[in-house]
């Protein structure tokens, strides 16, 4: 494919078009993925998550500038929520990243969640593959503002950074399962605000527990708008990546990730296999009516559709 050849040479326009194919589940999406897949696996993928307003975009901007100084090519995927009612989205993360737009070694793409819960979109992992294949070395995936259980990013990223700020939550919230369990690095951004000490004390509960890999999560203070703490954070990101490589975790987690990817692809393909068939769309709508009237349960209806599609 000519498009893939161009994107492998680092052509941004080709990469952008390829990403759209993946996001839209175009018929050519599978071909694109197939062609770029052998060229992936070289990038370090860093997930940035945390509540709305903690400064994730500004932090990504500051980190991107820092890694550019270190001669790394930087890809950024910034995810914002899609309206569940209209399907529209206002993607505004570029506002905080303006000056990077013209940097040759930076590629930024905004994405809507498009109906996917968990702070990412269904195509996020695939889109990261494009940036990886085009030669980006550090890829930041910034989730939509996350609450407590948006933990998808940990399945996609090598290094997960949870961004908090002073004044959010208390010690009980820090004990709950979910987002605070996935952090390899915890950043308290806006550390020039009051309340840093109690935020650190609360987070220390989350930091105490070693990850299954043996990595002990670290905490760090930043003021991203003033580039404070950014060099240390970049060092820590590199330290975690080195740990993953040296401990063999990168490899073992790679297998886990492959399993997740296959699972996701399987459910998506099954879904499309059924709904691609015009004769089954009518049946789908009939079953929806029956489920709404409580004449059939959704699981039996799904089995029925699979049967009609010749899969069950």
């Amino acid at each position: 494919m000519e498009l893939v050849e161009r994107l492998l040479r680092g052509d941004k326009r080709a990469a952008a078009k390829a990403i759209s194919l993946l996001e839209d589940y175009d018929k050519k999406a599978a071909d694109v993925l197939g062609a770029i897949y052998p060229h992936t696996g070289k990038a370090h993928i860093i997930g940035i998550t945390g509540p709305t307003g903690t400064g994730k975009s500004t932090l990504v901007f500051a980190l991107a500038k820092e890694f550019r100084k270190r001669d790394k090519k930087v890809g950024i995927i910034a995810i914002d929520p899609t309206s569940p009612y209209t399907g529209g989205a206002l993607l505004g993360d570029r506002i905080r990243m303006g000056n990077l737009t013209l940097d040759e070694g930076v590629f930024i793409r905004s994405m809507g969640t498009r109906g996917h819960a968990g702070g990412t979109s269904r195509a996020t992992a695939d889109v990261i593959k494009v940036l990886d294949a085009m030669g980006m070395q550090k890829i930041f995936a910034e989730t939509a503002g996350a609450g407590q259980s948006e933990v998808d990013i940990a399945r996609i990223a090598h290094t997960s950074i949870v961004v908090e700020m002073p004044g959010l939550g208390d010690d009980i919230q820090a004990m709950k399962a979910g987002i605070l369990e996935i952090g390899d690095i915890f950043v308290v951004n806006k550390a020039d605000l009051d309340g840093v000490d109690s935020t650190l004390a609360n987070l220390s509960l989350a930091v105490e527990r070693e990850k299954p890999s043996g990595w002990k999560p670290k905490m760090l203070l930043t003021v991203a708008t003033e580039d404070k703490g950014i060099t240390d954070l970049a060092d820590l990101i590199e330290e975690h990546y080195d740990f993953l490589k040296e401990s063999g975790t990168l490899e073992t987690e790679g297998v886990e990730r492959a399993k997740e990817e296959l699972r996701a692809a399987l459910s998506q393909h099954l879904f499309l296999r059924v709904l691609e068939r015009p004769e089954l769309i009518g049946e789908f709508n009939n079953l929806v009516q029956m489920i709404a009237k409580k004449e059939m349960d959704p699981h039996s209806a799904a089995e029925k559709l699979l049967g009609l599609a010749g899969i069950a």
Partner: protein
Amino acid sequence: MTKLRVLVAKPGLDGHDRGAKVVARALRDSGVEVIYTGLHQTPEQIVEAAIQEDVDAIGMSCLSGAHMTLFKTVMDILKEKGIDDIVVTCGGIIPDEDVTKLKEMGIAAVFGPGTPLRDIVDFHRKIAGK
């Protein structure tokens, strides 16, 4: 499942983005993925953002009077890069006598003050149906 993507951009130095934000919001509510660039973008930044975001349309807003220069530069860069699949529209404070010139430059629509949001939304719906 192609989704319409539109870049809403504020070129130049004017800081009046109420109009751009209202348009962005209206497009969002009609199901469009709107990428908002923020203020003070150079024409080069706008075109590059449009490329990386692979948008179907760019909507620029300018209230400072510099529209003839700024919009023309954007159109020139698009042409130079051989990009002909992005529809460009504009809005802001644009005198009537400039509208024809802007259209000659290749700008598809000029949405001046008082344009009903419905018109802007409908225009973009038509692009979606292209």
